[in-house]
C-alpha cells in the first residue's frame, strides 16, 4: 500500500520535527547518567480525579485520561501505540503489539499482523484476543443493543464510538492465522485516518481469561455471538453491526456487561483475578477505592524496554494544594506544581526536583448541553455562542490564573507542538473571538435581547427573524445557566468565578456555579444526552480539561464533535460539520487530507460548538531529578514508567 508510508512519513516528519525543535529549544538534552534498577516511583494523580475504571472498553462516563492513559493502558496496551518519549504524536511500532497494518484493494481491506507477545500468564496474545475486542465493541456500539445498566452504574459502552464509524464501517473481520487477521471495510478510507483514529481503538483482551458471563461461570466463546454481521438498516453508505448483539447476561453484550460491572466494583480490584492477566508492562498489586494504585512490573511483559523500577504507585489527592504539600514534603517522585504556587519552583528545584511542563496534543473546552429543553434553544444560537465566547478572557486567565503557562484556544485542532502542521492558519494566527465585552452586548442586543448588565438579560423579541431571539426561545426567556465544574483546582475555580462575574456584570448572563469531583462532572457531561433523550440537569459542564486526541490521534474531531458521538457531550449536531469531518476520512492524498482538515477546523473555529478555554499543559510536572526517563512526557497524556529508572 503506497499511501500509508507517505502519509505516515508526512505526519512523522512534520509533527515530529516541530516537536523535536520544541524539545531542543527547551534545552532538555542531558548526558546519560548511571542508572540502578529497583525503587518505587510515586506519581500524583490529578486532584479529585482518581482512577475509577480499569476495563479498557470504557463508556463515555469513564472515558478519561485518568482511567485510560494513566492507568488502564499501563496494564492493557492498545494494538497500535501512538506517541513516544520524544513527545511526537505519531504511530509507534516498537511499543505496539501489532505490526504496522497494510491496506490493500484500494484501501478497502486492512491486513493486521501481531508480534508474538504474551499475556502475563504466559498465554500468547493472538488474533482471537483482537477478535474478542471487536466482538464486544461491535455489540456495545450496535444501534440495536438493548439498554443495560442503570444511571448509577451505567452499562458497557465505548467513549470513542461514532455512529457509522468504527466498527460499523467494517463489513467483516476474521482471523487469518494465529497472529493475523483481516478487515474488510465498507468504503475506501484515508489510511492515515483509519490507522490513527479507527484501528487505534483496538486493545487486545485476554479472551481465554475474560470471556465469561459471571464470576461463577465457565470461560467460553460467548462473544462470538456478535461475529456474524449484517447491514444497519437505512444506513448510507451501508454500515454494519452484529446480527446477534446479546443481552445484559448473554452473548457479547453479556460479556461486556460482566466486565463492565467488575470494573465498576472498585473495592474488588485488588483481589480480582481478571485484572491480573495483563499485556502491558505493569500489573495491579494494590488498589483502594480512594484511588491509590500500586503497580508492579509484569514479569512476562513482551515489549521493550522492560520495567526496571520495582513499583509504580499512583497517589490520589482531593485538591492541588494537598498534592503540592506532598510534593513539598518530598514524598512524590512525580508531581505537579499548581499554577498558584509557581513561585515555589526555584525552591523545589533546589530541593532536588526538575521542572518539566507536560504538554498535550489536545485542546481545552467545555460543552454546552444543547439538549436541555429550556436553555438548549438559546445555546443552539450561533450569536449566543459568539457572545458567550467573547466574554471568555483567555489572555487574562493565562496571565492571572495559569502563571503564563497556556495558549488561547481558537479551535479544535491543537496549536501545540508549535508549528503543528495540522493547525490551520486561522487557528494559528490568533483568536477568532477574542475577549470583547462590547461585542457580546451588541450581539445579544441585535438579536432581540434586553441586556441588563449586572442583572438578568431577557428575550424581548421572540421569533426567528435575523433580529429576533431565535427558534423555540419565548418572550421573557432569561440568560440563566447552571455551570458544573470540577473541584480541586484553584486555577479552574478562579477561571469559573471570573467568567461568572464577567458574564453577569457585562451582559446580564447569570451563571450558577456548582462543583463536583472530576468523575461526577464527566459522568454528567457524557451520560448520553441526545435530542431524543435530552438531559435537563445541566447547562454547561467543565471537567477542567478538554480533549487529548487519543484514540483519535489524527485530530479530525469526529469522536467529540460528530453528531451522535459518545464523547460529544451536549450533543452538538451540525450537518456541515459532519460533512467536513467525513471529508477528512476519505481524502485520497496528503494535499486533500490537509485541505479537508483545515476546512473542518476553520468552520468550528467560527461555529464555536463548545466554549474554548485556554489550553494549558496537562500539568506543570515536577519530578525527582534522579529519575531518568521522564525528560519527555507523553503528548497524549500517556505514561511510560517502563522507561523510568533512578540514578
Amino acid at each position, binding site marked *: 500500500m503506497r499511501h500509508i508510508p507517505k502519509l505516515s512519513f508526512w505526519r512523522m516528519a512534520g509533527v515530529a520535527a516541530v516537536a523535536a525543535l520544541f524539545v531542543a529549544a527547551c534545552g532538555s538534552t542531558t548526558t546519560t547518567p548511571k542508572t540502578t534498577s529497583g525503587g518505587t516511583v510515586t506519581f500524583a494523580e490529578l486532584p479529585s480525579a482518581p482512577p475509577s475504571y480499569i476495563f479498557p472498553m470504557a463508556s463515555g462516563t469513564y472515558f478519561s485520561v485518568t482511567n485510560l492513559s494513566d492507568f488502564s493502558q499501563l496494564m492493557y496496551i492498545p494494538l497500535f501505540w501512538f506517541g513516544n518519549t520524544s513527545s511526537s504524536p505519531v504511530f509507534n511500532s516498537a511499543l505496539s503489539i501489532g505490526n504496522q497494518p497494510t491496506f490493500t484493494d484500494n484501501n478497502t481491506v486492512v491486513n493486521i499482523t501481531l508480534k508474538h507477545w504474551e499475556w502475563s500468564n504466559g498465554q500468547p496474545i493472538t488474533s482471537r484476543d483482537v477478535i474478542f475486542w471487536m466482538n464486544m465493541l461491535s455489540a456495545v456500539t450496535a444501534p440495536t443493543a438493548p439498554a443495560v445498566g442503570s444511571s448509577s452504574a451505567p452499562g458497557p459502552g465505548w467513549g470513542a464510538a461514532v455512529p457509522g464509524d468504527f466498527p460499523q464501517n467494517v463489513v467483516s473481520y476474521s482471523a487469518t492465522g494465529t497472529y493475523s487477521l483481516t478487515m474488510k471495510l465498507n468504503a475506501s478510507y484515508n489510511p492515515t485516518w483509519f490507522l490513527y483514529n479507527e484501528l487505534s481503538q483496538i486493545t487486545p483482551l485476554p479472551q481465554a481469561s475474560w470471556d465469561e458471563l459471571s464470576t461463577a461461570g465457565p470461560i467460553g466463546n460467548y462473544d462470538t455471538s456478535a461475529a456474524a454481521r449484517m447491514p444497519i438498516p437505512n444506513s448510507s453508505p451501508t454500515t454494519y453491526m452484529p446480527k446477534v448483539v446479546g443481552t445484559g447476561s448473554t452473548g457479547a453484550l453479556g460479556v461486556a456487561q460482566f466486565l463492565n460491572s467488575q470494573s465498576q466494583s472498585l473495592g474488588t480490584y485488588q483481589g480480582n483475578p481478571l485484572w491480573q492477566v495483563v499485556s502491558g508492562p505493569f500489573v495491579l498489586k494494590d488498589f483502594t477505592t480512594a484511588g491509590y494504585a500500586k503497580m508492579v512490573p509484569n514479569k512476562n511483559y513482551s515489549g521493550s524496554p522492560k520495567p526496571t523500577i520495582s513499583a509504580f504507585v499512583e497517589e490520589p489527592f482531593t*485538591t*492541588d*494544594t494537598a498534592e*503540592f504539600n506532598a510534593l*513539598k514534603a518530598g514524598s512524590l517522585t512525580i508531581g505537579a506544581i*499548581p499554577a*498558584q*504556587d509557581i*513561585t*515555589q519552583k526555584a525552591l523545589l528545584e533546589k530541593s532536588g526536583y526538575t521542572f518539566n511542563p507536560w504538554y498535550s496534543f489536545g485542546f481545552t473546552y467545555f460543552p454546552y448541553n444543547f439538549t436541555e429543553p429550556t436553555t438548549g434553544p438559546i445555546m443552539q444560537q450561533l450569536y449566543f455562542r459568539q457572545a458567550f465566547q467573547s466574554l471568555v*478572557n483567555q489572555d*487574562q*486567565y493565562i496571565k*492571572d*490564573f495559569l502563571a503564563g503557562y497556556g495558549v488561547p484556544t481558537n479551535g479544535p485542532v491543537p496549536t501545540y507542538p508549535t508549528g503543528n502542521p495540522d493547525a490551520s492558519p486561522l487557528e494559528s494566527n490568533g483568536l477568532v473571538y477574542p475577549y470583547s465585552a462590547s461585542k457580546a452586548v451588541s450581539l445579544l442586543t441585535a438579536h432581540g435581547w434586553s441586556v441588563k448588565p*449586572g442583572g438578568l438579560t431577557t428575550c424581548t423579541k421572540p421569533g426567528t427573524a435575523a433580529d429576533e431571539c431565535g427558534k423555540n426561545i419565548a418572550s421573557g426567556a432569561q440568560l440563566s445557566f447552571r455551570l458544573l465544574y470540577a*473541584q*480541586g483546582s*484553584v486555577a479552574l475555580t*478562579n477561571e469559573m*468565578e*471570573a467568567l*461568572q*462575574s*464577567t458574564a*453577569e*456584570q457585562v451582559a446580564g448572563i447569570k451563571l*450558577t*456555579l*456548582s*462543583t463536583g469531583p472530576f468523575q461526577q462532572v464527566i459522568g454528567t457531561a457524557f451520560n448520553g444526552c441526545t435530542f431524543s433523550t435530552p438531559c435537563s440537569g445541566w447547562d454547561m459542564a467543565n471537567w477542567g480539561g478538554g480533549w487529548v486526541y487519543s484514540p483519535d490521534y489524527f485530530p479530525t474531531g469526529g469522536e467529540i464533535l460528530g453528531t451522535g458521538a459518545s464523547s460529544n457531550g451536549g450533543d452538538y449536531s451540525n450537518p456541515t460539520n459532519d460533512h467536513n469531518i467525513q471529508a477528512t476520512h476519505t481524502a485520497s492524498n496528503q494535499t486533500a487530507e490537509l485541505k479537508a482538515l483545515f476546512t473542518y477546523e476553520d468552520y468550528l473555529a467560527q461555529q464555536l460548538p463548545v466554549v474554548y478555554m485556554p489550553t494549558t499543559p496537562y500539568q506543570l510536572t515536577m519530578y525527582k531529578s534522579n529519575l531518568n526517563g521522564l525528560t519527555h512526557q507523553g503528548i497524549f497524556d500517556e505514561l511510560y514508567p517502563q522507561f523510568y529508572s533512578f540514578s
Partner: protein
Amino acid sequence: MSAADPTANLPLAGALPEGGEGYRSGSMWRLILAVFFENRLAIVGLGIIVFMVLFSYVGPLIYRTQQVFNNPNIAHLGPSLAHPLGTDQVGYDNLGRLMLGGQSSLEVGFAAAIIAVLVGVIWGAVSGLAGGIVDTIMMRIVDAMLAVPFLVALILLGAIFTTSTLELIVVIGLVAWLVPARLVRGETLSLRVREYVQAVRVMGGSTRRVLFRHIIPNTVGVIVVNATFQVADAIIAVATLSFLGIGVPPPATNWGGELSNGLSYIYAGYWWLIYPAGLAIVLTVVAFNFVGDALRDALEVRLQRR
C-alpha cells in the same frame, strides 16, 4: 439602692445570721446578670460578638466595596490604603470580603443554632415527659444519629443539597439538634416528678400545658447555655464545610471559604488571605464560648451565691 446596683447580691454587713450567710434577695434576672458580668471573659466575649456583628453588618455601609463582580486585574494586591487587607485571588477587596463572609457565617451560626435548639428542646422534652416506649424509640433515634460522625453527616448532607446560605442553615441545624435533645430530655426526666408538675396533673392540666408551661420554661438555663455553644459550633461547621468546598457558591462567601481560598496561596506569601479570616473565626467562636461559660455560671443555681 438602684435596681442595677452591683452590690445587690453581696452579703449583708455585720454579724452573720443564724444558719449561715445571708443575701439580699433580688429578681432572678438581676441575679443572673450580676453573676454574668462578674466574669470578665464574658464581657470580652460579648464585646467581640457585638464588634463582629457591627463589623459584618454596619461595616459594609461605611466601607463600600464591590463584592458581586470580581476584577482579576487587581488580584493579589498586598495591603495598602486602597485595600487595607489587600485583594484576593480574583480581585475582591479582602476587608470587604471579610465583612460579607461574616454576615453569612453569623447568619448561619445563629439560625442553625435556633433550629437545633428548637428541634432539640421539643424532641427532648416530649421524649422525657412521655417516657416508656416513646422515650425509648425517640432516644434511640437520637443515639443512632449521634453515632454518625458529625463531619461525615455534614458532608453527606452538604453534597446532597445545592448549597446556599439557607440550605447550610438547614443542613447544620439538622445535625446539631441531637445534643440539646439529650440535654433537655435529661432535665425533663428530673422535672416531671417534681411536686408542681404532679400538682398540675392532679388538677387536670393537659400534657401540652405541662410541657410548655412547666417543663420547657424550667429547662431554659440549659437551653440558653447550650444555644451559645451551638452558635459557636455552627460557625465552625459552616467554616468546615466551606473549607472542604461544600460552602456557598460565589460570589457569596463566608469565613471558612475565605480561609480555604487563602490557604491555596500559603506558599505565595499572601498572608492577608489567611490570617484575617482565621482570626475572625477563632475570635468569634471563642467569644461565644466565653459567653456560654459565663451564662452557665449565671444560670446554674448551685454556682450562684444567694
